[in-house]
């Protein structure tokens, strides 16, 4: 599985080039800050840094970018935990238990849990990548349009099913998100839903819409609050509690490993992986826990499961990038650009002809995520000071950053206007108890889902039985049906148990 001569060559290459290691800490810090700031993102930071990498050798350039990638992977969890504002869609599930922990004054512990889970999850996935890059590449090639569609819908049904309060509300929010994601001009030339607005020809810009739905609407909701944490005595910053949270992560080894495996395999799926993997891992952790009702109320396992998966999907997307030359999302697309700038093309040829370079990239990324355990501690110690800042300062600051971030992404009015419109929509959705997260994931996946559905239709010639020729798609379809059926079945069992209890009580009387 491991080509030891190439591994030896990779280690020699890394150790003979100390300059390659100087970039790790700056890269991690850039990624942490970029990922933590709503309106800025890891891919924006990487885009800004990319031109500088032209003057660097390939190895330090890629190590810098993978360090930013690793930092941003955890960075998004910081606002998710402290303010219920996920920095990226891959941190959505972290809000489910991270933010309640902050409300209970356990923000230090939550950040420590997230940091350790993120670092170890990514480390496990990169280690597996070293061992299994060729089989992983083989597995990705088995995935086709039908599989992408089913995985995307599975992700959406998971979000709906996670909010057991009303699965129909969750599904409706997801459907709305997918429909909004299809607005604009399709690959087949149809222009739909643009209302005559030229800026919508390329569709609704997803990241500004995400910023509006998550960030701005959450800020509107926070208007009545004086501080993130109501009780003054709970607004403490404690290094010992951060370290305790990190230590507590190690008491959930099976959760860490399961989350990492889920993340790496789902993270391999281009375009879908990172948005869905954290939700799958969270749902799995809840399903297998003896006390599932504690999830969503500040259960540390929820944070561990989500962060382990979203960071390990880094390894999965790197596998797809290195082995197939296919980027999984914005950040890996920028890494692909960095490869091209150095005349490197990812793909099976790259792996077979330059395996030592592949191993060097993976080992460099592995060192980066392990370094994040140390670099991340002062970062989250500083970041957790946000709980001491009154909301009247946070709201205009974060709102301005989000609007400028939306402007920076589109370069025109489309970004800020989209953010504003979706901020209003998101506020109403929350007010009427629709899970905004489902709309966000639907929006992120909408365009991709339609494109892949049309591709499947064209490949199959319109034959619906084509699905039965795709066993992997059938497996995910079965999981999708189970995700919907399981909460309904559990509710029926609970209702029967309640009825039996009532009957027993009546008979006793």
């Amino acid at each position, binding site marked *: 599985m491991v080509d030891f001569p190439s591994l030896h060559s990779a280690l020699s290459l890394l150790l003979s080039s100390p300059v390659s290691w100087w970039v790790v800490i700056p890269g991690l810090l850039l990624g942490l800050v970029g990922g933590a700031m709503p309106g800025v993102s890891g891919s924006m930071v990487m885009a800004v840094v990319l031109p500088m990498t032209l003057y660097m050798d390939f190895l330090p350039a890629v190590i810098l970018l993978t360090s930013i990638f690793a930092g941003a992977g955890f960075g998004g969890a910081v606002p998710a935990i402290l303010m219920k504002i996920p920095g990226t869609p891959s941190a959505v599930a972290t809000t489910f238990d991270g933010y309640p922990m902050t409300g209970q004054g356990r923000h230090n512990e939550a950040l420590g849990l997230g940091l350790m889970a993120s670092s170890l999850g990514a480390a496990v996935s990169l280690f597996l990548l070293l061992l299994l890059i060729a089989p992983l590449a083989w597995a990705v090639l088995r995935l086709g349009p039908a599989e992408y569609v089913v995985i995307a819908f599975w992700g959406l049904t998971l979000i709906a099913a996670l909010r057991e309060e009303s699965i129909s509300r969750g599904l409706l929010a997801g*459907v709305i998100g997918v*429909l909004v994601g299809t607005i604009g001009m399709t690959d087949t030339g149809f222009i739909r839903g643009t209302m005559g607005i030229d800026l919508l020809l390329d569709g609704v810009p997803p990241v500004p819409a995400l910023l509006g739905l998550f960030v701005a609407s959450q800020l*509107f909701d926070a208007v*009545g609050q004086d501080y993130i944490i109501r009780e003054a005595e709970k607004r403490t910053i404690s290094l010992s509690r951060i370290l305790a949270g990190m230590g507590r992560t190690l008491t959930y080894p099976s959760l860490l490993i399961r989350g990492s495996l889920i993340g790496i395999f789902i993270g391999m799926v281009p375009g879908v992986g990172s948005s869905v993997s954290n939700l799958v891992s969270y749902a799995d952790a809840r399903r297998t826990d003896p006390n599932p009702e504690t999830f969503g109320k500040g259960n540390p396992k929820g944070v561990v499961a989500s962060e382990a998966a979203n960071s390990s999907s880094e390894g999965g997307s790197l596998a797809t990038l290195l082995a197939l030359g296919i980027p999984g999302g914005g950040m890996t697309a920028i890494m692909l650009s960095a490869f091209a700038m150095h005349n490197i093309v990812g793909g099976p040829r790259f792996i077979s002809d330059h395996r030592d370079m592949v191993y060097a990239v993976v080992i460099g990324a592995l060192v980066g995520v392990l370094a994040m355990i140390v670099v991340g501690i002062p970062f989250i110690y500083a970041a957790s000071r946000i709980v001491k800042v009154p909301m009247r300062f946070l709201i205009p600051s974060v709102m301005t950053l989000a609007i400028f971030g939306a402007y*920076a992404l589109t370069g025109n*009015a489309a970004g800020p206007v989209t953010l504003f419109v979706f901020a209003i929509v998101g506020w109403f959705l929350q007010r009427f108890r629709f899970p905004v997260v489902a709309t966000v994931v639907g929006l992120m996946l909408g365009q991709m889902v339609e494109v892949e559905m049309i591709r499947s239709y064209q490949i199959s010639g319109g034959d619906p039985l084509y699905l039965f020729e795709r066993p992997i798609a059938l497996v995910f379809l079965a999981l999708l049906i189970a995700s919907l059926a399981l909460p309904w079945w559990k509710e029926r069992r609970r209702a029967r148990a309640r009825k039996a209890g009532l009957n027993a009580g009546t008979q006793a009387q």
Partner: protein
Amino acid sequence: MSERLKRVLPSLLFTAGLGVACLLYLWDAASLSLSPLNLLLLLPLTLLGVLLCALVIAQDVRAALRDGSARAKKKPPLDWRVPTLMVLVGLFVTATMTIGYFDLVTLCFVAVTLVLLGERRPWVVVIFSAVFTLVVVLGLKQALTFDVSTLLL
């Protein structure tokens, strides 16, 4: 209309609005073409959406009629600062995209929002707004390759 139904009326109207929006979108798409390449995802998803809207409305009406008025959860009254902040954000976006002058508009937005949200110390409003504007707008000008219109910076 009973009191219980009146309480959930805004939610019912919003949900119905979502259903109508789905249908309008489908109508817009169908008026272009009835080809499967156009409606393959839209048609089943819109129908599902409308069905879910009906289901959510039915659930809300049933819940409203079932819950006694004493037990039913009352939403807290809407804080007047929320719609005001929405208007401010709208004005901020409109002003930056039409007039430009990111520095001046940001300064005004941050200062007015601080006052709206309860900051009463004028020196804090001025200094925080100015420093924040300076850092963020200068940072934006440095980071972006396209023009960021400013008045003073």
